[in-house]
């Protein structure tokens, strides 16, 4: 038996490992029942949820780009009531912490959502203020410190759960945003959401995506994500969920070294649906090789 432990704590939540899933890439967990091992997952971060059900964007919703993908799903979801009534009870059986990612059209909606989700079966909420694919809400709150702070405060006022703010990479200075989040009372930050990108079909001379632009994710963005985690680690003391192009344990380790307390796996789930299992296994191996016994011995240990 390996003596290496991947157990950790994040914003007061006990986790079996620091490996989570990124919102929107793992459905509600159920879709990956055949591939994932929920006992090795730190948390399932479910698809972005809104007050009312949403249909998302029309037309083509994904495009592949070099080492990455663009998506403009546009927050399609069955609405928070359906989540609470139908889905949460179903996925409770995995005994895996559930973090609900929420999006609002207004500051008040974030508060309302936080209140509705202040229930058993939800371990934390993640505020999506950085979705590039919807007109209202979404990214508007994520690129301006003041409106982001308002969203955080609205959520904090309405829930006893840890509030995680998901930062947009589409900003001049991510450290400024992170500091504003810390000051507004967020319990943790997660980063990065997708970079805004575009693809054009040169045969039709039209944008590939129905929404013209979309969010770039996958290995292509990893260097940017890693840099931002490192910048944010130096700027604030809140726990960080690092994500952006993590495909394997090596990538995850880079994020831990840069200062991430947990990592989230996104696009990798589409490529290898058992990515989280492999990362768990290989992360353990790495710690063994390095003669480390606790994942926390790795976090922030970049030697500069």
């Amino acid at each position, binding site marked *: 038996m390996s003596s290496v432990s991947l157990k950790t704590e994040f914003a007061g939540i006990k986790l079996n490992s620091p490996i989570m899933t990124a919102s929107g890439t793992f459905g509600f967990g159920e879709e990956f029942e055949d591939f994932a091992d929920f006992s090795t997952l730190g948390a399932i971060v479910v698809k972005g949820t809104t007050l009312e059900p949403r249909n998302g964007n029309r037309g083509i919703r994904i495009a592949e780009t070099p080492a990455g993908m663009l998506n403009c799903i546009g927050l*399609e979801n069955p609405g928070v009531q359906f989540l609470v009534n139908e889905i949460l009870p179903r996925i409770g059986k995995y005994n895996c912490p559930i973090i609900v990612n929420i999006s609002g059209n207004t500051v008040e909606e974030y508060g309302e959502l936080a209140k509705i989700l202040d229930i058993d079966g939800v371990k934390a909420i993640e505020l999506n203020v950085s979705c590039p694919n919807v007109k209202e809400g979404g990214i508007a709150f994520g690129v301006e410190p003041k409106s982001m702070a308002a969203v955080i405060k609205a959520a904090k006022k309405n829930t006893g759960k840890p509030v995680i703010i998901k930062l947009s990479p589409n900003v001049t200075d991510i450290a400024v945003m992170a500091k504003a989040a810390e000051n507004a009372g967020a319990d943790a930050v997660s980063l990065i959401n997708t970079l805004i990108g575009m693809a054009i079909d040169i045969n039709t001379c039209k944008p590939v995506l129905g929404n013209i632009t979309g969010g770039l994710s996958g*290995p292509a963005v990893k260097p940017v994500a890693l840099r931002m985690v490192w910048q944010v680690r130096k700027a604030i003391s809140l726990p960080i969920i690092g994500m952006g192009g993590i495909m394997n344990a090596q990538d995850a380790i880079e994020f831990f070294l840069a200062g991430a307390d947990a990592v989230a796996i996104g696009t990798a789930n589409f*490529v290898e649906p058992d990515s989280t299992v492999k990362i768990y296994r290989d992360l353990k191996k790495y710690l063994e090789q390095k003669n480390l016994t606790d994942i926390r011995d790795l976090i922030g240990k970049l030697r500069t």
Partner: protein
Amino acid sequence: MADGVIKRHEKIGTNDVYLLDIDISANTEKFAAGQFVQLQVPDGEILLRRPLSIADAAGSNLILIYRVIGKGTKRLAKTSVGQKVSIMGPLGNGFDLACKKPLLVGGGLGIAPLLLLAKRFAGKADILMGCKNVEEMDWPLPLFKNIVKNTFITTDDGSMGMRGFVSEYLPEILTAESYDKIFVCGPEIMMRSSAEVAVRHGIICEVSLEKRMACGLGACLSCTIETKCGRKKVCKNGPVFESREVFF
């Protein structure tokens, strides 16, 4: 999930159509016609998997038939026999075989999944296939030779069989014979018009849809469509649908 090994890989159609025979070391007996797999294009350049219908399956061998379209299939065409290839599947819901006298209707590459369907009907199905021209008929004709009863053919330019689209020829066929179900796979416009004809003739029609997919598991919502019964995911709830559910 299976790590397959390429056993055969050859160009079977003049128009960049390839047949890929993969040994997936697993029994394929239960694979339904109309289901698909998410294939990872080998060699690491291509990020997302590519959805391809199961064209045929026997023993532990899976046959895929694909046309070179873009980056992924171009790259795929370069892989050689003996190479490993990762396969996720079978995914989605296949055709519902319950019927007495089936007519299969295929257009272009949509003919591929009808191969396994014809086999599952053990010779009792007829097929109507449409292609642009006689050249494009080069690969389907030999494949269907002994596994269907009657073969009807249309080409857009009349270079083989009837001239025109399958949907134009379909009323005639449906009137002549008493089919009780038709199974359509091809370009969306062809499925739509064929389904219309079927509905007009009071015959149940199943169609197989194509949408861009990332996960293939119902998680990413790349492939959702509006149906008569609400939003559905092509990868999970389809790709085969009863035509009246999706064309309405």
